[in-house]
């Protein structure tokens, strides 16, 4: 028997599979399709202080091995998340959930986390300082070590739950930013958010996305994600949630070898709604194929 469990900042997870924020809503859509309690956990839709419509459409473009999205943090706002989404989720998901939070100012990050902190369903915070699809906030916090540290420090003060900072890959040196988060009290980092990309419509001779640029996800970005997880693993002593194109059980193993304690599955859920469950189901056979008895033993093993 192989052992899939991992411990993420003190919370035991049956397996390291976490559907990524923005690809799994608040879970209940997927709960109609399968019992989502098979998941390690999931990271819910990026939540901001106020309700947001997001960007105009088209918000989606296709590319080789992946897709671009420019949803722009559409969400009902933290109050409705607490009053409507979390109660609906409670009926179908009985594990700690990961709360993904975004903001446009330090104060907004702090206030949103403070409001969510009392919710017993929430096991971890994942603070997104790397959304490439919003202007005047979002990614700009994630592109300098100083501002990443500021957000981490401020949010740290209002929650004692495990705090993960979600990092942008669109930077010269992601290890510098990860170290700043660690030094400012983060319990871990999650990476990578999407690469910033674009497509142009040849017929219209205009960008496909109304937002011009979008976040690039899918299997195509996995080599960049693996490289960054590998680099950050060398640079910090806090756990890493690895993500970026993971679509198979083999991808999970590769990402954990690079240094991830747990992994997020993003775009794959959109292409195959059962992807996260399928990956969990496929893990034991893949582990046996590669001689792995316990997933937690391979974290960072490629560094040896």
């Amino acid at each position: 028997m192989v052992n899939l469990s991992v411990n993420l900042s003190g919370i035991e997870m049956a397996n390291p599979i976490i559907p990524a924020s923005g690809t799994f809503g608040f879970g209940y859509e997927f709960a109609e399709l399968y019992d989502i309690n098979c998941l390690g956990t999931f990271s819910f839709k990026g939540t901001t202080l106020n309700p947001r419509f997001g960007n105009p459409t088209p918000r989606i473009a296709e590319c080789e091995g992946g897709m671009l999205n420019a949803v722009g943090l559409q969400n009902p706002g933290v109050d409705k998340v607490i009053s409507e989404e979390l109660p609906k989720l409670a009926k179908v998901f009985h594990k700690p959930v990961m709360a993904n939070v975004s903001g446009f100012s330090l104060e907004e990050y702090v206030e949103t986390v403070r409001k969510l902190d009392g919710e017993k369903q929430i096991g971890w915070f994942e603070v997104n300082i790397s959304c490439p699809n919003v202007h005047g906030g979002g990614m700009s916090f994630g592109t300098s070590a100083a501002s990443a540290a500021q957000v981490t420090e401020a949010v740290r003060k209002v929650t004692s739950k495990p705090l993960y900072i979600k990092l942008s890959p669109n930077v010269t040196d992601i290890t510098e930013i990860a170290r700043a988060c660690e030094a400012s009290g983060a319990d871990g980092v999650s990476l990578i958010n999407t690469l910033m990309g674009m497509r142009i419509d040849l017929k219209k001779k205009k960008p496909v996305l109304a937002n011009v640029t979008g976040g690039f996800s899918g299997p195509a970005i996995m080599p960049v994600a693996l490289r960054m997880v590998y680099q950050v693993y060398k640079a910090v002593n806090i756990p890493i949630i690895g993500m970026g194109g993971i679509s198979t059980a083999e991808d999970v193993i590769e990402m954990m070898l690079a240094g991830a304690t747990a992994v997020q599955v993003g775009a794959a859920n959109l292409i195959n709604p059962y992807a996260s469950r399928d990956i969990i189901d496929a893990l034991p056979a893949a582990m046996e194929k590669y001689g792995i008895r316990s997933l937690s033993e391979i974290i960072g093993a490629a560094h040896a």
Partner: protein
Amino acid sequence: MKQAIYEITRNQKIADHVYEMVLRGDTSAITAPGQFINIQLAGKYLRRPISICDWSDTDITIIYKVVGGGTEQMSEMHPGETLDVLVGLGNGYNTKKSGDAPVLLGGGVGVPPMYGLCKALRAEGKAVKVILGFNTASEVFYENEFRALGAEVTVTTVDGSYGMKGFVTDALKTMEYSYFFTCGPMPMFRAIESVAVTSGQYSFEERMGCGFGACMGCTCKTKYGNKRICKDGPVLEREEIVW
């Protein structure tokens, strides 16, 4: 919604750039005309959403136009080959509001969902008028199929090479009807909106990520809040639409 593997039992050209494909497999997830399916294609990351034209207990008929690499790939597939498909997506049309004599307006590849809808309305005993709009004669399809359902069919072509010369709205203006249902391009929708004299339902198109409500890629604003075209749509009622 169900995900399953479907076998292609038919795939043939029925008009310029337009193909009819029949897929054999589980159709139990289809609950209303106007729903769509989402097809995975080798080498393409996103699935291709295609509206359902008709369905039985064992088969789904779709009609698609070759507009890019994905649909071109579909057009080159053969009976016996299989496709991974998500079936029964979207809300579909609500026939309950149609009144006794609804009119259906389909433009180009907006025609196919009108067929399943027409069938459903005829089964409910409604007197159905259908207006099918195309650019030119070589693009016309399914006129006889609609007549076989007992509908009163008018075909319009922009260049007048077949049927009535003009747009679907030119035909609509001459008719009496209790309600309308439509699917087609945005300029057609705007024209209908400006001349229609009853309530009705529009089926919208948008670039989609997942097709089942997860990614928020296709959200639009309505008078009653945000709606996902893929899940809360593609059919919206005239009264809720923000133009």
